[in-house]
């Protein structure tokens, strides 16, 4: 992956999440009113509608809900084949991500994964996942 990945700029709702990535910390949102966890960051709790939301650090561990090996690149940053996956964190929220450092044949639904970090040119980092050994 030579060219930079297409990553949009942070906004008022997502700034703290992206700032934490600079220290390799993966955040999810936690609702103080009802206890719900969610990702991506947004201005209200999707469970109860409360605005009383805080960032909490996630364990970085989860399971592969599903995945696909992409064979045609949508952007020059990507060199096929590579793995795109839906990862369900232990805290509940699901992230779209990549599975890196694994033989594609070893990636399966429901396998356990842990977060890894890929540097972005602007100092932010992108959470990707590797198979737990």
């Amino acid at each position, binding site marked *: 992956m030579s060219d930079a990945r297409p990553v*949009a700029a942070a906004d008022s709702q997502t700034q703290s999440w992206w700032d934490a990535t600079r220290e390799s910390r993966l955040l999810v949102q936690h609702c103080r009113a009802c206890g719900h966890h969610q990702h991506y960051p947004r201005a209200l709790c999707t469970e109860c509608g409360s605005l009383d939301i805080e960032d909490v650090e996630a364990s970085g561990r989860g399971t592969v809900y599903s995945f696909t090996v992409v*064979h045609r690149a949508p952007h020059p*940053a990507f060199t096929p084949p590579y793995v*795109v996956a839906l990862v369900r964190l232990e805290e509940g929220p699901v992230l*779209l991500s990549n599975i890196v450092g694994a033989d594609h044949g070893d990636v399966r639904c429901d396998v356990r994964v842990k977060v890894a970090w890929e540097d972005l040119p602007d100092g932010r980092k992108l959470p990707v996942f590797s198979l737990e050994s």
Partner: protein
Amino acid sequence: MGVAESELGATGGTILELQAQAVSRALEDAGLSLSDVDGLFTTGVSRFSATQVAEYFGIRPTWTDATMAGGASYEIFLAHASEAIRSGLCDVALLSYGNNQRSARSRKLGGVIDDHTPEAQFEAPYGPLNPISLYAMAAERHMHEFGTTSEQLAEVAVAARAWALKNPVAFRYRSDPLTVDDVLASPVVSTPLHALDCCLITDGGGAVLVTSLERAHSLRKPPVVVLGHGETTTNNGMSQIPDLTMTGAYVSASRAYEMAGLGPSDIDVAEVYDSFTITVLLELEALGFCKRGEAGAFVSKGRITPGGEFPLNTSGGGLSYCHPGVFGIFLLIEAVRQLRGESGERQVPGAETAICHGTGGILSTHATAILGVDR
């Protein structure tokens, strides 16, 4: 109702020109004129789609809807038009669509992601093909949970081609029959989906006219009646889908069946959105034609091919007839023709009820319509 397509395939036409062809033919089919139209339902043209199309046609409708729900838009429009007519808010509703995506080469592998959306920060950085990779992950999960195979997925494409060979306006009408091996030998795009698991990219337009049953009795063709409808929306991004194999179609279908007072066993012909082969399996389960997880076996052994016991996507579908981006209106057109007995070599004998199911985005929008003959 009046229904029609424009020219299909690679036309070199503009979006508005394709709409005009379809609308003119549908008005002829119904025996109506543009001045009868007081409701307009269209999307995918420009920022002000309904206004754009109304101006092009020189009409000033008093009821408009330009909801963009991708492939479910026109089943949603049919529902909204029916309810507007029932409430007396409009008398003759025109559902109109056109797209020149093959000629204009306007599709992008990564889709179109607006910079200010959460997907631009949290999904596009990972390089998914949009929409293909989400459907691919649904297929992978279906295989994992239920043992569904690539061969079973391929059966959907094989049957679609067989139906298209009976539809003279289908893009693949003059093609060869397809085999399961052909599908499996086509290039992998996003595992487990191959190129031939994916719908066509063609130009095309379609139009459907809807009016009250009372007025329909005075028109050129026998009426087709909207018996029930249902819709829901579940997710815009890939990470936000509640369940990859249990989609919103369960909700839209149960609402439509309840309104119609019918169940799956009452349906004579099914027209369901085949953006990808997996889409059809998910829909067949949600519409109640087989149990959850059993659609792979259901579509095998010739059940959905012409002459099989379950007439499905009799036009050849998005896989082999046409797919100008938002296929939902073509589901309605084929269902109406089947219920009128106008489908020629692909006619399902004695069809009196049809179900149309549209799915848009990345399993995002879901809308079901149940149609029947007037009795």
